[in-house]
């Protein structure tokens, strides 16, 4: 492609330099900065000089241990039981504060499960981070397939040849142009326990049998409620990407399928879906990246609560890096987040690779 006419180092540099410089300073530099800062105790404003602390931040965040506890027994060897008849176990505080177990110092109970009469207690140095990590992964693992799938169904619906179909396409896409902050505040009202639209609707549909739910105030429903709203807001975006993929599939393939007498499902399975392979990778990667970045919904709707059931990695990174001015803590979470985004993108690329 190159020709003498277009060779010019000076002009090339002059045209590209502003863009390259801005991306270098405001994207690439902070990206490497995040790794460097995560190895220090940097604060936003501090009278003390910043120190190198090695992997300390990662140890503080990621340390997890399992304690296996046998129930307390009385002198006769009988299991002690509380008023409700449940076995009594040693208190975790007595272990994490005991000088006998310096390795557990500062750790707190994350969750526990029982096998027989032995209690397995998972303790973590940073329980809030662990909850944020699990919530974020849950959000990604639910939202990516559900939103991607619904977006594909919508794309197939608006790809029909019907009068007025562009109007429906335009309506399905509409929430995408509305700010997620606006949407979050709006849905806070829809989910509200008193006078919220969702409770009223469900109660009307069940003729009053439905008991009102405090969607955002209950640890079991808060994250699913945020998932539902996020999908509602963004599904139109991915519908459009699927749609552009659908329109690259040659009509002659569909004609051939029709001549062969293929059913609708067969046409989808053997004509449409193979033609969407590249689109599928793109849609999944984009949704995954957007899902990992979950922040505004949390900030506006729940601020991580109730009981940390909606903590997310980005919310924690901002809470620490900005709220508590703990830049190194925020940077450490950012690095963990980036590594997860990278890992999942590579995994999706590999899972959806062209099979030879």
């Amino acid at each position, binding site marked *: 492609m190159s020709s003498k006419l277009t060779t010019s180092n000076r002009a090339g540099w002059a045209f590209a330099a502003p863009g390259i410089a801005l991306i270098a300073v405001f994207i690439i530099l902070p990206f490497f900065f995040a790794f460097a800062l995560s190895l220090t105790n940097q604060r*936003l404003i501090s009278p003390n000089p910043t120190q190198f602390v090695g992997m300390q931040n990662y140890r503080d965040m990621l340390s997890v241990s399992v304690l296996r506890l046998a129930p307390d027994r009385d002198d006769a060897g009988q299991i002690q039981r509380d008023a409700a008849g449940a076995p009594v176990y040693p208190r975790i505080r007595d272990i994490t504060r005991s000088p006998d177990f310096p390795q557990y110092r500062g750790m707190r109970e994350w969750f526990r499960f029982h096998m027989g009469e032995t209690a397995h207690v998972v303790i973590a140095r940073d329980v809030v981070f662990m909850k944020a990590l699990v919530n974020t992964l849950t959000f990604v693992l639910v939202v990516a397939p559900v939103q991607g799938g619904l977006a594909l169904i919508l794309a197939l619906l608006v790809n029909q040849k019907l009068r007025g179909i562009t109007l429906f396409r335009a309506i399905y896409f509409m929430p995408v142009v509305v700010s997620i902050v606006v949407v979050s*505040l709006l849905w806070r009202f829809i989910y509200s326990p008193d006078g919220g639209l969702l409770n009223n609707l469900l109660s009307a549909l069940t003729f009053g049998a439905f008991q009102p739910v405090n969607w955002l105030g209950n640890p079991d429903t808060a994250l699913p409620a945020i998932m539902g709203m996020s999908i509602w807001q963004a599904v139109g975006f991915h519908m459009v990407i699927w749609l552009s993929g659908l329109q690259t599939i040659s009509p002659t393939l569909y004609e051939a399928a029709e001549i062969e007498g293929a059913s609708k499902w067969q046409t989808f399975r053997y004509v449409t879906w193979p033609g969407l392979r590249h689109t599928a990778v793109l849609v999944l990667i984009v949704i995954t990246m957007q899902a990992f970045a979950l922040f505004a919904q949390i900030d506006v709707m729940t601020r991580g609560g109730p009981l940390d059931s909606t903590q997310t990695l980005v919310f924690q990174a901002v809470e620490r890096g900005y709220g508590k001015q703990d830049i190194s803590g925020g940077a450490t979470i950012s690095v963990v987040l980036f590594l997860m985004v990278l890992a999942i993108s590579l995994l999706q690329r590999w899972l959806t690779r062209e099979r030879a």
Partner: protein
Amino acid sequence: MASISPDNHGLRLAVRYAVLILIALIFVFPLVFMVMSSLKPAQQLLADTASLRAFLPVGDISLDNYARAFQRAPIGLFVFNSVLVTGLTVLLCLAVCSMAGFAFVYLNWRGRDLFLSIILATLIVPFETIAIPLLLLVSKLPWIGWEGVSYGWLNSYRVQIIPWIADALTIFLFVQYFKGLPRELIEAARVEGATWFQIYWRVVMPLSGPVLATAAILKFLVMYNQYLWPLIVVQQEKYRPVMVGLQYFFQLNIAWGEVMAYLTMITLPVLAFYLALQRAFIASIASTGVKG
């Protein structure tokens, strides 16, 4: 099975439309509710949610909520800030990214391919993972103003504009588009003795309407809806954009009527803009899906 009677066909068509309309209602109802509620006094707003009246402009309709919203927050200032930051960033972004795209497609220079691949690699870095280190960086950056050199960009317009001017996606869009333009045009202009800037400005830019529109729409949506970044770099009311200004409305006792009025004010212009140009909006999103 093979023959479909006309009745059957009509029924199937009706079912198809019914499905499409039902789904449309799911996407529209919160927005209709927002606009209608903004016109109602607080008590009626809550009472109406129990029936379809929630979606109708009925009862005691007025613009009182709007008047009170203006008393609660300096809305004019927030809108001005958002328009200024969004407008300037979009313009600068178009200039910087189209020039970079021009250099990557039409010019041969040392390092070209390397820099292009580095820029495209930044596509997988979500902004949220660099926000905190970037916060520290901009809190220390120097600035040369009228009063000489100062340090720290927090609480300013520049901190909301400059980091957002160049981005990999916009450069990628220009590169893709320029690759499709006939190269002979550029070479012919070069033979006739035009400078590179003249070729960029007089030959390439006039042909770039579609990609400029796409890039401008995408950047507009990102900038106008910006939340996390202004939240952490702007504490002074003076520089706050509309989305951060929302915080004035979700304090302890939420006055939902005023909230709905504010949401309507900052959303309706964008929705109107979208509905007027919906083909262009949808085409812009679709073009991000075209892999190079």
